[in-house]
């Protein structure tokens, strides 16, 4: 049954960079409204995994189906698919030459062909949701890191995506700005959005995750609900990792 339901489905996916194998035989499923948090040491393939979902990286073997569409290199459907899959990046990647409002409306206007006024109404709604309605007319460079990342989240929301991907959204932020971004993400999780999040923020993970995934050296080592994951993980490697990052 779950095969039919899954909104993201990896089946024996491999990914190579030249001779280096970044993903090794990945098989995993994400159900609609599921919140999955992926963690693991750097270089373990978690970013590669999440970037495969909207085709920013293409896998070399295996099958990947997202929202009923098979993702593969050169697929024409992938452009349509990306409208349903929002992505938030570590480095925000806002468009520096556009105001905050334009950053939010350019996708809806140019890609979804929504009239400008309507797009602005939607954009303001989501700016409200990320708690920065007053910044609409500023340029990204005039905002703090935390504010920029919240704009980036709002930009993805404006596409009215069904799936949101977060690639280490708080790793480039000053410590005092991490919480404002995490708060927005927790609120978002409460709306029932499907979320896949690569992060080391274990407090956040404990609060929102339905499923925890631990990766190492391109392989998925552990998949467990957070209770079990944090208290009694099966693999020693995962326990070691958790001890390391929860130490402080």
């Amino acid at each position, binding site marked *: 049954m779950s095969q039919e339901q899954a909104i993201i489905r990896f089946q024996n996916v491999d990914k190579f960079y030249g001779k280096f194998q970044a993903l090794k035989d990945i098989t995993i499923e994400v159900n609609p409204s599921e919140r999955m948090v992926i963690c693991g040491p750097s270089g373990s393939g978690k970013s590669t995994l999440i970037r495969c979902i*909207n*085709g*920013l990286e293409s896998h070399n073997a295996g099958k990947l189906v997202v929202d009923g569409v098979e993702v593969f290199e050169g697929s024409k459907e992938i*452009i*349509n698919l*990306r*409208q349903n*899959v*929002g*992505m938030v*990046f570590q*480095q925000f*990647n*806002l*468009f*520096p*030459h556009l105001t905050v409002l334009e950053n939010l409306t*350019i*996708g809806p206007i*140019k*890609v*979804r062909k929504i009239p400008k006024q309507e797009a602005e109404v939607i954009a303001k709604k989501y700016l409200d949701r990320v708690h920065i309605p007053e910044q609409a007319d500023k*340029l990204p*460079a*005039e905002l703090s890191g935390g504010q920029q990342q919240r704009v*980036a989240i709002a*930009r*993805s929301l404006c*596409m009215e995506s069904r799936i949101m991907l977060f690639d280490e959204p708080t790793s480039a932020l000053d410590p005092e700005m991490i919480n404002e971004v995490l708060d927005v993400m927790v609120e978002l999780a409460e709306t029932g959005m499907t979320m896949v999040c690569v992060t080391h923020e274990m407090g956040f993970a404990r609060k929102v995750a339905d499923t925890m995934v631990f990766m190492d050296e391109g392989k998925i080592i552990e998949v467990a609900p957070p209770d079990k994951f944090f208290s009694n993980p099966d693999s020693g490697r995962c326990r070691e990792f958790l001890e390391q990052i929860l130490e402080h």
Partner: protein
Amino acid sequence: MESSSLISVKGLSVRQPPAINRFLASTPVSIVIYCLIIGGILYSSFKGAQSMGYNWQWYQIPKYIYSYTDNGFQFGELMLGLWATITLSFTSLVLAFAIGLLVAILRLSDLLIGTKVAICFLEFVRNVPLLVLVYLFYYVLGPVFKYDRYTASILCLAVYHSALISEILRAGINAVAQGQWEAAKSIGMSKTQTYRYIILPQSIRFMLPPMTGEVVHMVKSSAIVSVIAVAELTTLGQNIISDTYMAFEIWFTIAIIYMVVILILSIGASQVEKRYTVIN
């Protein structure tokens, strides 16, 4: 023993440089040295010309720039030449930009054949001297495709500069952070949309400084078409000299005309550049 006294720079005490350095670096001394050098050059060229028995006829020059007769105000020959230089450069520039854009797009495309064609074109144009290109376009391609010397000069300049412009475009596009591509892709933009709304608006500020250099370069290199006798500033200058033997005055005048035009272009360019500066 004053040479090791301390002075205050931005609130810090630093050792003062030796007196002789301070003397040489002071503004009045710099001006005097500058005047001496310039004066020396001018004097020696004047002396040299005198020893050749050169007959200076500066009073002849104004009529080649403008004249005021019964028919009213008229531009002189050199000004007509300058106008030809400007129209020639401008036409070539527009064409060069179009070809350059095409080559840059080919070069950046995913098509293997496109990339190869672009690279062949670039390597050919960049590794052949401009003078040879001029001869090629006039003496070889001219008779083949039956066009005149003016067309030959425009085509030649356009092709030569398109190679340089396409590299400027490519560098400007590549200078935009990779994350911008990813962000645009992730909101579902196609490649064309990404170029148009995200990449090109940002790459303009990377392209402008070298592109203004290209405009200047174009005006300067347009002088080379005088070898196929296209009636632009340099050619008309040569014609006047062969009529009057005023080589020194005319070449000085032409150099100054080029300099003034290019200075104006450069100042205009730096104004445009300021407007396009984006904070990152």
